[in-house]
């Protein structure tokens, strides 16, 4: 009789048991969907719709105001086709990516309703950012500061209060993949730490704390290791709650630098 090859697969790894680790949100999406959608929203949508999705009159994603669509499929269609006669262009990305934007839009109401207290002061926040907080040692904002860390010049267009507040208190809580630091050791033994700018199968690109744009062939590196903690200190204790509110107010005010 013909021998049948029986295949034993990953023992004990049943589909059902793993599903629980990836619970869906109310909008039927995973956290990863929302995270990917967030990145795509920032890259493609935010300059018209704003970080809270409420920058265009009559449209407010945070409060589920989608004037032309109710279901997820309808939103996908709007994204795919654009809205003729308005500034809303058709998105050329594949449907699975478009759907992650819908996932992100559906997640917005959960974090709606935040507002800064009336005491929040942008000028004080700026002074803290440039002075006591020593933020410009790593970050750049409106043309001043270091290039080493992520540029804050338009952070007010990209992040909401809840996210900025968390980043100040718990900088390790969320580190976006594009903001990670890597340690490389070159063939001659030189060790360099830099923020990842890009990578591919054969090369990596970094910016180091001397603000140099560096590119390496992986084959020429002795070491290429991610640093999975943020070099940013927590400001939970070094700034007061009121000071953190001021810094958040300042960051929210950063809406980009006009193009020359």
């Amino acid at each position: 009789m013909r021998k049948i090859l029986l295949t034993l697969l990953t023992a004990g790894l049943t589909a059902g048991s793993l599903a629980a680790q990836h619970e869906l949100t109310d909008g039927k999406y995973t956290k990863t969907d929302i995270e990917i959608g967030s990145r795509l929203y920032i890259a493609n949508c935010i300059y018209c719709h704003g970080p809270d999705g409420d920058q265009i009159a009559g449209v407010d994603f945070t409060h589920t105001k989608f004037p032309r669509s109710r279901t997820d499929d309808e939103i996908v269609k709007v994204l795919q086709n654009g809205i003729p006669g308005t500034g809303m262009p058709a998105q050329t990305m594949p449907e699975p990516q478009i759907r992650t934007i819908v996932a992100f839009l559906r997640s917005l109401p959960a974090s709606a309703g935040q507002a800064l207290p009336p005491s929040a002061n942008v000028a004080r926040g700026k002074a803290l950012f440039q002075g006591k907080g020593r933020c410009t040692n790593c970050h750049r904002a409106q043309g001043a500061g270091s290039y080493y860390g992520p540029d804050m010049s338009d952070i007010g267009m990209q992040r909401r209060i809840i996210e900025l507040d968390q980043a100040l208190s718990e900088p390790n809580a969320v580190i976006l993949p594009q903001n990670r630091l890597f340690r490389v050791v070159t063939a001659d033994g030189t060790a360099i730490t830099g923020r990842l700018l890009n990578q591919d199968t054969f090369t990596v690109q970094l910016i180091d704390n001397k603000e140099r744009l560096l590119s390496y062939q992986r084959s020429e590196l002795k070491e290429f290791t991610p640093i999975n903690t943020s070099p940013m200190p927590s400001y939970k204790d070094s700034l007061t709650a009121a000071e953190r509110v001021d810094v958040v107010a300042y960051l929210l005010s950063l809406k980009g630098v006009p193009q020359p």
Partner: protein
Amino acid sequence: MKNAILFAFVTVSAAQAQVGYDRLLHTEKEPQNWLTYSGNYNSQRYSLLNQITPDNVKNLELQWIFQARSLEKYEATPIVVDGVMYTVQNPDDVVALDPATGRIFWTFSYTPSPDSRPCCGRLSRGVAVLGDKVFIGTIDARLIALDARNGKPIWNVEVDKPADGYAVTHAPLVVKDKVIVGVAGGEYGIRGHIDAFDAATGKHAWRFYTIPGKGEKGNETWAGDSWKTGGASVWVTGSYDPDSNLTYWGIGNPGPDWNGDVRAGDNLYSDSVVALDADTGVLKWYYQFSPHDEFDYDSVQVPVLADIQMPGTSRPRKVMLWGNRNGLFYVLDRTSGQFIMGKPFVKVTWMNGFDERGRPMKVAAAASSREGTLIYPGNQGGTNWYNPSYSPATGLFYIPAWEDYSSLFVKQDATYVKGQTYGGGGPRNVTPPVVAGNFNYRKEGEQYGVVRAIDPKTGEKKWDFPLSDVTDAGIMTTASNVLFSGGRDGYFFALDARNGKLLWKATMGGRVTSGPMTYMIKGRQYVAVCAGNALFVYALRQ
């Protein structure tokens, strides 16, 4: 002088002889040409050309670029016949070029019907040739024959209705005097079919429905009327075995894709390979890779045919090699359809073995669900339509694979509306699946792409060449043991087919989403690959 001109004319005429069926049968006699989408009928993507070797491949040099006037993914493999290259310009233009310089002889421009709505790209993966004609299937589900000398249409026939979701996106397959195409549209509730047309006139010759009709064997594998809207599309070119006169085609997913409740049963012949009599389209055998699929595991891979001496046998066996989107590598007897072997080539959790007849044993919990079910491989599969290769020189099967890749499959209600998408839910991401734009921030431990070499006698992995991102690039191998492939990060590279060692690389500046091919002009071997929106051609530095 007059004689010299006459001689030159005769030489060119003789060199551009018609591509008769006998030439398609014996491509090994003219490795300087690349006469079909996959190189020849056995679809091995293996070339006998050996000028480029592991030792000298480092001397490859860019010869020319064809910049397509299209921003769509360039998934095509060109054809080269007697000093003329035929390729597409998305969606459905055909271009004839000088394969030594890239200069254009002619362009056929085509505007598809506005009714056309292919799910996943307004594109064509290539053309076919026979006699003095070039054939292209279009995204508005037509088949068009062009005059190979000037690109003028000779006939143009309907394959199906684009408004109902039908399209043709793959390169046709020519067998004898017929042109064979299948229809895409598995996300639109179509009823798939494969059709043959007379190459001379465009007259319809036969149709095979990939879902059996009422009263036909296999129809009972669809609950109620679900067979009428069950998908089972065809969007990658099949293969042909002249000894048995069978043509083999991979069939796509059942619809609605992610909700199988409305289509209880195995859903034949979705996610299957079908073997059809090339003259009549009559089904001779089938093998279903993924019965009652809810994970979009289209079996639209190119069937790779080879004669291999399997363990325990004294003679080479006529087999079919298949790296399936469902994550399993298969060896089937291509004469009878008998299951010989199946083994995961990536992480697989939806099944845990095969029964005596070679039917996969599904894990009980492996079903799409309202709350989401995590399954490996994910929706894009352990591989997809990306062209694999088999090298008789190394005896290895090479496959572009996605490793450690999963999706959370979510079931939702589905209502069929003609011409509308009919999915019934969809996959959700558990790790970021793709690189957005030009930047790659993939984290360690997340899914990755790999060029994987498998020994078809055992199903065991022989070597890996890992990539920084998942891959959509096909593979080609040569008699001199050079393997060509590429990746999403835009590299076109050469590996040693024996051990996976990197031999050469060049950056194309756009993702490689096609299968490479090779040809020879005036004693010089060229290698071509589509990446980004352009076709790049390399040869050894002179």
